[in-house]
């Protein structure tokens, strides 16, 4: 198992390098001269040249990419923000826990809603509950996250005054953003849980369990759920990535000081190193989450486990 994890970690390296290549390329081709952008309009030609020399901006594409990666790995350095000349790495890292927390809460909301509703829908297929929750799930998938956030602000903050429309420090502030970011994922997990459970319930081993005289509730929890969870876990892992992406929008609506908001502000200021730094950070996290999901797989499924022994 350890060897498997080690191998997977090694395989992660080319993927992350690839992601870095993409973000670096985008940065390389983004409009504006980095030296000018960093130093500002009033910088003289000599100053600009000095800056270029210092930061290796006169080198070719591949040399610069090599340095970009080297600096990122050795010095946690992803360049300077054009806006305030702060370290991009530090700026992003400072706000990263907030984004992670938001996405985590979103997953929590989604799992807490999606899995139970999905199970009940599957066990009571074609019932009223099933029909209603499937329609709600479809609506949930169809709503743009950011729009839902805006509606919630209008309704729960402006109209009812129950929750504050911004911030992310206390529980009350976290309710609306977590619901906003979690809803569509909840809908997806509901649909996935339902179809996965329906698939599993039809299997012969469920009939075997019933033939043993096992209680229906136990048949569901002990035999069906464990098997049905295997594809659901994959979906949860993938959704975590979308949530990290969705955080960009949600944070900007609720004025949450995370990486997403940093990126959106940076976009407006044309502060491209911050934008690409944020993308890189989130992509690396997403890859790690997927690795964890694969390991979790092995815990859930003995067939997978024995492959890696």
């Amino acid at each position, binding site marked *: 198992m350890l060897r498997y994890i080690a191998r997977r970690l090694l395989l992660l390296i080319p*993927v992350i390098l690839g992601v870095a290549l993409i973000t670096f390329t985008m940065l390389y081709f*983004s409009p504006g001269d980095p030296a000018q952008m960093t130093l500002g309009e009033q910088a003289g030609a000599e100053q600009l040249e000095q800056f270029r020399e210092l930061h290796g901006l006169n080198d070719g594409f591949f040399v610069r990419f090599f340095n970009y990666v080297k600096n990122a790995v050795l010095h946690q350095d992803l360049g300077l923000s054009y806006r305030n000349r702060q370290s991009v790495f530090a700026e992003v890292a400072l706000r990263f826990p907030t984004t992670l927390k938001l996405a985590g809460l979103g997953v929590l909301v989604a799992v807490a809603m999606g899995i139970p509703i999905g199970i009940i829908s599957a066990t009571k297929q074609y019932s009223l509950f099933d029909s209603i929750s499937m329609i709600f799930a479809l609506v949930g998938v169809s*709503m743009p996250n950011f729009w839902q956030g805006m*509606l919630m602000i209008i309704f729960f903050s402006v109209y009812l005054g129950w929750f504050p429309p911004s911030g992310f420090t206390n529980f009350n502030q976290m309710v609306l953003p977590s619901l906003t970011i979690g809803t569509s994922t909840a809908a997806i997990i509901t649909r996935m849980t339902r179809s996965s459970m329906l698939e599993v319930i039809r299997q012969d081993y469920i009939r075997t369990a019933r033939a043993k005289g096992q209680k229906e509730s136990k048949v569901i929890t002990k035999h069906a759920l464990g098997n049905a969870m295997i594809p659901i876990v994959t979906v949860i892992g993938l959704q975590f990535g979308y949530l990290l992406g969705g955080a960009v929008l949600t944070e900007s609506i609720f004025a949450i000081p995370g990486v997403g908001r940093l990126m*959106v502000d940076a976009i407006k200021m044309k502060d491209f190193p911050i934008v*690409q730094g944020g*993308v890189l950070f989130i*992509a690396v996290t997403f890859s790690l989450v997927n690795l964890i999901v694969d390991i979790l797989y092995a815990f859930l499924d003995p067939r997978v486990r024995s492959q890696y022994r």
Partner: protein
Amino acid sequence: MAKNVATASASAPVVADKKRNQWKEVWRRLKQNKMAMLGLGILVFMVIIALSADLLFPKGFDDQMISRRFQLPNSEYWFGTDNLGRGILDRMVHGARVSLSIGLFAVTISIVFGGLLGAMAGFYGGKVDNIIMRSLDVLLAIPSILLAISIVSALGGGLFNVMLAVGISSIPGYARIVRASVITLKGQEFIEAARAIGASDKRIILRHIIPNALAPIIVQGTLGVAGAILSAAGLSFIGLGLAPPNPEWGAMLSGGRQFIRDHWPMTLFPGLAIMITIFALNLLGDGLRDALDPKLRN
């Protein structure tokens, strides 16, 4: 060898015939699905409205008049007016053109490139497969909205770049689907037969494999249009997509954000338009999936 040739020439029309019947059968099954037909109906309605926008709403999407701004829904402006006195409905209908075409073109881009990459990977296997799929793994490691943000922030906004960014960001999904279909199809007899009569690789991919991998692509494509419209709206919302006064629905929402506390129609209606469109596409996509593969139906 001779036997293979005979099989190929004899079975080709049969296969084509079977295919046609299969689509008829799919359509018959789809028609029975009320929800899918509802989705299709909504979409057809939206497309018609979007196409006849100039006739129905001749004022266009940028008819400003400060004196009539911030109107609530009334008989003249069904969905009210915005901060510059433009009819929200007028803008939405013109915006439907933009949003729907972004969805369609972005998906076309991903299907064409994803399809070709996937077909090549599946068809040639080995090294080609490895290189293509590992590169796509890299794209997959970046959540699609972030990839789109990354691309648009480098290329700049505007209709074409948004389509391109959204399209590129969902290439890997299509490539995987096509690759999987190709691998299953590759072993089948009629491909062997085509090869035996000396068809070129290009011909086999274009004439035999792609038509046969069509079913899953259609389903994914329908759902993909929905995803593309959402992504584009998200990009515009954070100021990366289409700039004002463009009536793209996400851009309209972005414009309404400042007035979220005071003038709800600017927030409600454009979002509703997005939601209904996505909802309809999802209904149709689910219906198509069931119709194309009844085995999968729950």
